[in-house]
């Protein structure tokens, strides 16, 4: 008994040390980005780790004035919002159709057809799709949005079909006896029931699309005006490589929207994401 008690204490101390080190490892880099974004190059060169001598917003003002930050923010917002809307319309409805007709050959076939995407690494698709989009004159926001909708189907349908098949069928049945059409049943009965999965899909895909780098790099890298925030940051590296406090400001501004959203709803975000992965 006594030995177990000692064990316990050693473990508690060890645990707290581990967690503390982890917290430092996560927060210290972000802290450095924050403080240096308020410094001039000269000040940061003198002491990288010290607090800024004053809250100097010059980097921010210059960034807003000289770069197209607002345009990139708007582009990112536009692409994310439209793609997500499209995804949230398409994925639950097709999944409902598949889940409630799984005994029919057509629906079973398209289910496995959509799941094929699980086995295919993105690189196989990305090269030919870039050529195709260029041929179709779709190297623009519209094209990118359609690609996100198409590429989101595999995972989304996989999550939703399994979820809907686990729901009781009786409520829908009685709704249909009461005279509801399939579409009415879907909107009034099924959609409210799948709300938890909708929030999971929403969070997963917002994070994916907002932070995605590869697809915008291939589809939008022609002209600056159509860039998204990740592209802006990447190109910032080459453009402003000498002015690193400015670069820190840019990184901070790119992270900020997501961090604000996370602060507001972190409980739901963590919960939603876990639900998706445990099911998947």
């Amino acid at each position, binding site marked *: 008994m006594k030995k177990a008690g000692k064990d316990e204490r050693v473990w508690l101390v060890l645990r707290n040390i581990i967690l503390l080190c982890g917290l430092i490892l996560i927060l210290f880099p972000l802290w450095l980005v924050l403080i240096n974004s308020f410094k001039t190059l000269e000040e940061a060169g003198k002491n990288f780790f010290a607090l800024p001598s004053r809250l100097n917003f010059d980097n921010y003002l210059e960034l807003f004035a000289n770069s197209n930050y607002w345009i990139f923010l708007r582009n990112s917002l536009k692409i994310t919002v439209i793609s997500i809307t499209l995804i949230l319309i398409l994925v639950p409805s097709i999944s409902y159709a598949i889940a409630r007709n799984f005994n029919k050959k057509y629906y079973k076939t398209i289910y496995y057809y959509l799941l094929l995407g699980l086995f295919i690494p993105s690189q196989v698709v990305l090269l030919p799709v870039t050529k195709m989009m260029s041929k179709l004159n779709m190297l623009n926001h519209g094209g990118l949005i359609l690609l996100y909708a198409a590429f989101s189907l595999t995972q989304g349908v996989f999550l939703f079909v399994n979820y809907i098949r686990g729901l009781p069928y009786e409520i829908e049945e009685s709704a249909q006896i009461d005279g509801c059409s399939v579409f009415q049943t879907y909107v009034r009965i099924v959609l409210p029931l799948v709300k938890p999965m909708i929030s999971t899909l929403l969070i997963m895909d917002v994070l994916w699309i907002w932070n995605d780098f590869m697809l915008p790099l291939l589809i939008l890298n022609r002209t600056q005006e159509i860039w998204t925030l990740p592209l802006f940051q990447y190109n910032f590296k080459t453009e402003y490589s000498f002015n690193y406090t400015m670069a*820190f400001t840019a990184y901070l501004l790119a992270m900020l929207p997501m961090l604000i959203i996370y602060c507001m709803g972190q409980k739901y975000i963590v919960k939603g994401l876990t639900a998706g992965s445990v099911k998947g």
Partner: protein
Amino acid sequence: MKGTNRKKMSGRLTFFLFTLIPVILYTFFYVVSVINGVRYSFTDWDGMAQKFNFIGLKNYQTLFKNPYFWNSLKTTVLYSIMLVIGVIVTSLILSISLNSLKAFKTLTKSIYFVPAMIGGVTIALIWDQLYYRVLPVIGKALGIGWLSNSLLMTGKTALPAVVFVQVWQAVAMPTVIFIAGLQQIPDEQYESAKIDGATAFQRFRYVTLPYLLPTVTVNLVLTIKQGFTSFDFPYALTGGGPVRATEVIGILIYNDAFKNMRFSLANAEACVLFVIVALFSLTQLKLTSKGGTD
């Protein structure tokens, strides 16, 4: 009778219409692209020319003779192994630590999840600066020679340094998934183990681990796939350098397709990756479904 029949028909039509747009989108943008990709891998297309010829397996022959291709395969495997070990071990330790925490639990958990909110490129660019400006300072202060330059600039340290940055981000998800798994372990199990005089390690070995095993599989699959297809982190941190030390297959494919004008060869490389990932996924599927019936 006629009314119900018509209703049934319209119901069937609704279901069918629900599937229509997604199937078209998926077929047109995804499946056609995959088929095109495989097709291009048998041609000599540079990605620009109007015309191209089918040359059979020649791209694959060139590929298998190319030492850079083998190098990138080796790098990818090494990358994935390091990533998996780093992510699984760290997230396991973190989840057990976090789960047993009493004070500040929610706050600590939320901070640990912050990296999952930030894009890979942003993280990579921040760490690029840290490797360049912070670590050498620490290295000098402690008198550690190999820290005096950016780790990304030396061939030997570049790959682990890139993997570390991806681990920094990729740990968040598995940690939360592990915590969800841990919460399913009934408290009585620990109580009785404690009464039996089990040490902390024994409790981990005989109570925690068996319960966590299914969750380990989930996390393993997620992470291995991330490793095989990694691109953002090495691309933004090193671009594949120095001297191809971090040139994973994702970067090789991108460079061959869009920089070296060897588009069809890049498609062949992607197809090889395809075969590897597919074989791996199938094996994994078989293993887990077997585990499920046992």
